[in-house]
């Protein structure tokens, strides 16, 4: 961090506690913000390129490798897209199992973010293990919650990272009732912890900030949308994943060499927990809705620093929902629906823990992938994140550099950016000074 005649540059070379590796650069000239940049120097891995020529059956497993934090999101968005292309619907117990698996990923990922990545910011620690020295029970609870999510993924998916059980059309094997029942006790315990977490998160000090981005999330009547739904926005937009391109464009922004997603009319938008919460509050389970209300969280709630509370509410919801799905579970007769490939384009979207994840494939008559496009949440949020940063720096430019740097990092972490996901579309700029 350097200060030269009225020009201040705050640089964090490695953003810690985000998934993947990135950096942030803020340039302040004469007290006002000149430039804000979130840089990503994750090396590109070219998923869209090497998906060409692969079989549609391989897409769930291959795209899972884009991100080890939210593999289920990739697997199920890919499945949705393939099923859309081939004109099949997956419903009943198979869909419920998918939703259960996805709840597991939400629990795991949100608990990771809330307890291990984000809470240390609020409480002033560099890491969860450091925080554990003063707050051992807090970290232990977070880990227990996280573990319950991982257990769901292990039972339904086979393992916690890159589960093996997901296939186009459903699952390779449907778990037995008995297997699922082993999850009840840990999930009940997790739900208790999640309720405590809402209270705790709501008590954390937090700066006032109201976002004016348009909020975009999936919505599905009768349920808090996770693994399916239409895309809706706070600005009244409502479209199917197939119509994504008519509403959302990825722009080339010269300044940052990055592709930023925006709405066609140029509006900045935000996906993720805050968007979901505001657009789907009425569909939360009563318990989750009640917990949110008790914590003073009701829509509209647009403060990104409150995202930790929203995630906690979603934790309650995911545990509650998982328990409901388990108690209603009857194994399907067959674990998957038969799939007949045909030449077509398919579109699929689901709600990854970090927000809307959209896939599009073009396939030939044998189901070989001709073209693939994937738009993950972090790419969609990049513009909003930079916007928040700018707002924040303008407001708190008086803070000493070190302090401001940390605060900025926190502002970024509000959105839990997953840089691993982002890299296969973001231009990278290597800056290692």
């Amino acid at each position, binding site marked *: 961090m350097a200060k030269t005649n009225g020009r201040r540059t705050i640089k964090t070379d490695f953003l810690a506690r985000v998934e993947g590796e990135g950096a942030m650069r803020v340039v302040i000239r004469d007290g006002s913000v000149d430039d804000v940049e979130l840089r990503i120097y994750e090396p590109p891995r*070219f998923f869209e390129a090497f998906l060409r020529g692969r079989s549609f059956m391989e897409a769930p497993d291959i795209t899972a*490798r884009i991100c080890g934090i939210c*593999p289920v999101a990739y697997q199920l968005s890919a499945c949705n897209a393939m099923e859309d292309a081939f004109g099949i619907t997956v419903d009943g117990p198979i869909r419920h199992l998918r939703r259960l698996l996805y709840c597991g990923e939400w629990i795991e990922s949100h608990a990771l973010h809330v307890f291990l990545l984000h809470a240390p910011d609020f409480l002033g620690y560099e890491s969860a293990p450091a925080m554990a020295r003063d707050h051992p029970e807090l970290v232990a609870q977070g880990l227990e919650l*996280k573990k319950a999510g991982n257990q769901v993924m292990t039972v339904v998916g086979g393992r916690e990272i890159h589960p093996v059980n997901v296939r186009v059309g459903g699952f390779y094997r449907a778990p037995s009732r008995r297997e699922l029942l082993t999850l009840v006790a840990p999930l009940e315990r997790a739900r208790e912890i999640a309720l405590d977490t809402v209270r705790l998160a709501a008590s954390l000090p937090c700066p006032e900030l109201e976002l004016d981005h348009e909020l975009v999330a999936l919505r599905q009547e009768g349920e808090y949308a996770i693994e399916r739904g239409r895309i809706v926005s706070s600005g009244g937009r409502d479209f199917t994943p197939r119509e994504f391109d008519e509403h959302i464009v990825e722009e080339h922004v010269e300044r940052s060499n990055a592709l930023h997603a925006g709405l066609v009319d140029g509006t900045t938008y935000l996906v993720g927990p805050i968007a979901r919460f505001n657009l789907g509050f009425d569909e939360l389970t009563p318990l989750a809705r009640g917990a949110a209300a008790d914590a003073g969280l009701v829509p509209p709630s647009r403060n990104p620093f409150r995202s930790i509370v929203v995630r906690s509410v979603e934790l309650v919801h995911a545990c509650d929902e998982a328990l409901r799905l388990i108690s209603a579970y009857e194994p399907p007769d067959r674990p998957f629906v038969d799939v007949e490939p045909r030449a077509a384009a398919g579109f699929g979207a689901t709600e990854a823990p970090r927000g809307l994840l959209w896939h599009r494939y073009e396939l030939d008559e044998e189901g070989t992938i001709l073209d693939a496009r994937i738009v993950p949440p972090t790419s969609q949020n990049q513009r909003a994140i930079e916007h928040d940063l700018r707002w924040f720096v303008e407001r708190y430019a008086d803070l000493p550099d070190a302090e401001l740097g940390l605060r900025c990092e926190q502002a970024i972490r509000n959105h839990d950016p997953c840089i691993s996901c982002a890299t296969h579309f973001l231009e990278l700029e290597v800056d290692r000074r």
Partner: protein
Amino acid sequence: MAAPRKKKLAVWKFASCDGCQLSLLDCEDELLPLAGEVEIAHFLEASSGVVAGPYDLSLVEGSITTPEDAERIQHVRRVSRRLVTIGACATAGGIQALRNFADVKDFMSVVYATPEYVSTLETSTPISAHVPVDYELHGCPINKHQLLEVLSAYLNERRPAIPSYSVCIECKRRGNVCVMVAHGTPCLGPVTHAGCGAICPSYHRGCYGCFGPMESPNTASLAGWMQRLGSSKRDLLRSFRTYHAAAEPFREESEAHG
């Protein structure tokens, strides 16, 4: 007697999905005891505190795909007493090594509007292609129990007890019914390195080789049998060309069906 100095652990990331380092955070029951045993000196995914090297043990995730990373790994090696690669990317180049079979410029133009800005190498290579590696832990992703075994082995100065035989041995110990013999499902288990606990067959699918080649893989014989089960040449090429596409035995076999 003074308490012995805690060993310093560092976690590094190259081109990867973060899943293998996440495995460390997935050790929910062991994470805090581990933090008590070692000084987690460099682990960006989990901590903003960075303690300067040298480090007693470095876990390296990810493959080398850019000129900058090729330099950075040299630095990592210099500051690490022991260097252990974790996962398919670091150990074999990962799924991104599919670029090794194509022209990377074509790949770039598929993904990027302005490919000139992208700095990347022609190939994705494992860490061992750049620096000496003390131990390679297999898996895409690694198995967290094996990660703990590696950690406790290095903390206690012993060799990790990690077998390199086939997935079949784990599969049979587990009591699974063989999916290849009983269902006719092609399975890479016989040529794949153990470690996952034979998850895929337990879920009624064939192993897809995410732990890479086992100690003495006879891929040609297995490929012949898979053909009898109905795999086409293209299926075989795809089967051997995934997360360990660049591991020698799998590379050769995939090219035999190219």
